[in-house]
């Protein structure tokens, strides 16, 4: 006996989302995923690695001078991130100044101090207190520390004469000898 059903094949006449609508939705979703992935990747990256070319920057010092790639070219550069409220920074400040006084006459070594998230008056008081004579300036907009992906202060980066990062110290120097040990091999014969 033939089976007869009373059920009607009722296919709901649903409108399909237009093709352009689906395209926009997929492109939007992909775009969002790419942005999230980029942010995650950036956050997971550590500090700039030794052997890499570090980010170039121009610092405006507290006394208004500009120090940029032209002033740094062909020199060993020591970049020190510090803050006046940072106690470990105080520990290394005299040694850094002594090292600067030791290397400055050579002319092929440049020390640069970068005050991170500090107020100008406090930074200047700190410079005065430790009689720091090498160029120092504020990290305006924290752009330099972000480029170097710093994680705090003090952090010191030493760049060789070829412009490659040769040494990274993510804690304070404990002696003048330690600073010399980091710089001397980069000066050549």
């Amino acid at each position: 006996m033939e089976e007869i059903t009373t059920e009607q094949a009722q296919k709901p006449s649903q409108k399909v989302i237009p093709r352009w609508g689906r395209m926009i939705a997929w492109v939007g979703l992909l775009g969002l995923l790419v942005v999230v992935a980029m942010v995650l990747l950036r956050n997971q990256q550590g500090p700039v690695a030794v052997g890499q070319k570090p980010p170039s920057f121009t610092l405006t010092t507290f006394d208004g001078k500009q120090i940029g790639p032209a002033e740094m070219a062909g020199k060993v550069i020591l970049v020190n991130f510090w803050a006046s409220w940072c106690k470990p920074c105080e520990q290394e400040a005299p040694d850094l100044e002594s090292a600067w006084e030791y290397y400055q006459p050579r002319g092929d070594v440049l020390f640069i101090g970068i005050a991170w998230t500090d107020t100008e008056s406090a930074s200047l008081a700190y410079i005065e207190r430790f009689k720091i004579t090498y160029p120092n300036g504020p990290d305006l907009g924290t752009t330099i520390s972000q480029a170097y992906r710093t994680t705090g202060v003090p952090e010191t980066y030493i760049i060789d004469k070829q412009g490659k990062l040769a040494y990274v110290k993510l804690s304070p120097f404990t002696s003048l000898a330690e600073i010399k040990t980091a710089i001397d091999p980069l000066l050549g014969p």
Partner: protein
Amino acid sequence: MRKSIFVIAFSLGFILLLAGVASAQQSQPTPSDDQVNAIAKQLYCPVCENTPLDVCPTTACARWRDLIRQQLAAGKTEQEIKDYFVKQYGARVLGTPPPEGINLLVYLGPLVAVVIGIYVLYRVYRSWNKTVPESNAPPSSSGLTPEQDAAQDEYIHRLEDEVRKG
């Protein structure tokens, strides 16, 4: 006599001048903690992430609050102070990011999500209504649609035929 009158007049003038300076200084009182914190709570120091500046206990944040106090005392507006902090320390010090560049996603994302949500709800609501047949014809007395009636009739006819044959 004339000389002593001149000295008295000069002294009185000097005292009045001092009084004027003193009252002018009193008209610009030191900003209160509440005034400072009203701005500080909108700012975040990068050292202590996710802690608003008004409640952050570190030395760095205390100095930032002092800076706000100094700028308020200097007559700067709230917006000028926030602009200064953004220039000095970057846009990430703000509690709410400025609506520009990639930050626009923060503002537009929820709006787009709401619009998409409303559209999806609308579609679901429509599909639920579509489960009722689209035919506009009124249902018969049996409660079935004409199509269902026809199918039923055909079934009855066939059943009757089978009974006769049997």
